[in-house]
């Protein structure tokens, strides 16, 4: 029988939550690494018992943890993230040059085929890779040294590379997103990169249609349509149907088009999900109602999904890496809040229930579908 394993990173540790195919009863284990910030943990598609976790702290810096038994035991592996060559500068908040300075790993993206190969998106923005199960990490420096790098600027959360999307049909093609630089694409496995931000409009920067400088919050792809991308930008929900070459807005009738996560239904490539947030100065849902919005038309037309979600006095946020979708049929959707709830829906979003309520503030949610 199929099972799912939900991996939750919080401000105070990691949790591993397992459920059967019905997804109505859950077993919660953790916290692992109690007291540490877990920006992300994710399992290897090639070996689902192999998990990786990004553990960090303002006191002790970055640690990477690895499990080979689905999270029962963990081993700290390599944590040296040294930029390759001169670091150069990007722009600081005040517009002055600022040297690249490693802070933490935001996102871990294990290879689809090799459990020992993982990409890591870090702050200050750069892309690293391990091919030995996390024991050593090496930068793919062409991204950081892109000619536009000197113009990249941090968002409020830091200058982070938070999104890594690999084309399943052409693994040498990858998309990454940086706040606040935008989307970049490589077609040669990371040896060269191009900004992919045409069509984005950001009124918060001096030139709203600049080639770089956009605060992209999240990019998602359905594995059967790698040329179609969906984006939650700081403001605006966008889509591209030409592998990022151009973007157009699909915010449609959303109550607000500010938000962080965006994801795609497991079996319906035109069904997408966002969690609208009132504004960038408030960071909570409009009207105190926690609503996931679903579009079955790839954008433009959205419906509120509210059944089982709090519809009064709710002022949590849902961060960019805190939504995930399993591969069962009907597919399950999960998201975590800054209030410590993780909600799940076993029917594509029609009905929701908390699978755990009182965790520390949730930073990331991933799900593994296990047979």
């Amino acid at each position, binding site marked *: 029988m199929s099972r799912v394993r939900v991996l939750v990173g919080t401000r105070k540790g990691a949790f591993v939550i397992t459920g059967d195919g019905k997804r109505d009863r859950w077993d919660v284990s953790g916290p692992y690494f109690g007291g*540490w910030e877990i920006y992300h943990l994710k399992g290897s598609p090639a070996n689902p018992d192999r998990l990786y976790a990004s553990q960090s702290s303002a006191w002790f810096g970055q640690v990477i943890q690895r499990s080979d038994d689905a999270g029962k035991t963990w081993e700290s592996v390599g*944590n040296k993230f*040294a*930029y390759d060559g001169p670091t150069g500068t990007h722009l600081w908040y005040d517009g002055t040059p600022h040297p690249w300075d490693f802070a933490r790993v935001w996102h871990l993206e294990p290879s689809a085929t090799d459990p020992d190969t993982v990409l890591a998106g870090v702050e200050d923005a750069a892309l690293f890779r391990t091919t030995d199960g996390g024991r050593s990490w090496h930068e793919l420096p062409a991204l950081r040294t892109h000619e536009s790098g000197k113009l990249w600027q941090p968002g409020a959360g830091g200058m982070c590379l938070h999104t890594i999307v690999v084309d399943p049909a052409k693994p040498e093609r990858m998309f990454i997103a940086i706040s606040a630089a935008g989307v970049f694409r490589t077609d040669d496995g990371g040896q060269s990169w191009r900004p992919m931000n045409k069509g984005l409009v950001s009124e918060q920067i001096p030139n709203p249609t600049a080639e770089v400088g956009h605060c992209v919050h999240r990019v998602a792809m359905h594995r059967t349509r790698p040329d179609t991308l969906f984006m939650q930008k700081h403001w605006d929900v966008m889509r591209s149907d030409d592998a990022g070459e151009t973007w157009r807005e699909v915010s449609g009738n959303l109550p607000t088009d500010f938000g962080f996560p965006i994801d795609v239904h497991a079996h319906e490539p035109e069904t997408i999900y966002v969690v609208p947030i009132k504004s960038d100065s408030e960071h909570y849902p409009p009207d105190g109602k926690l609503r996931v919005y679903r579009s079955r038309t790839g954008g433009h037309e959205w419906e509120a999904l509210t059944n089982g979600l709090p519809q009064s006095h709710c002022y949590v946020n849902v961060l960019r890496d805190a939504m995930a979708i399993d591969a069962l049929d009907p597919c399950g959707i999960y998201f975590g809040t800054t209030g410590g709830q993780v909600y799940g829906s076993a029917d594509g979003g029609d009905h929701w229930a908390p699978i755990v309520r009182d965790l520390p503030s949730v930073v990331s949610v991933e799900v593994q579908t296990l047979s």
Partner: protein
Amino acid sequence: MIRVVLPAHLRTLAHVNGEVTLAVSAPVTQRSVLDALEGKYPMLAGTIRDHVSRQRRAFLRLYACGEDLSHESPDAPLPEAVASGAEPLLIVGAMAGG
């Protein structure tokens, strides 16, 4: 043997309880003690000193014999009481409240 007291999170990371003891050749300095600590417990590399800059992390301090040694040269000899093992070197995390 040199005695070192780690903050709780680093004891957990290194899988140790209480003080750790280290064999350190003379001269006994911050650098030689931390080198020995990271040699015996490689998982602590990067958690006390930055991997690249080798600078002490900003929210960590080094105390011994009732003194704050954090701003001493990493190559300055540590107090004799630390070198003899009579007193521990304390690695202390900044207090977090709120």
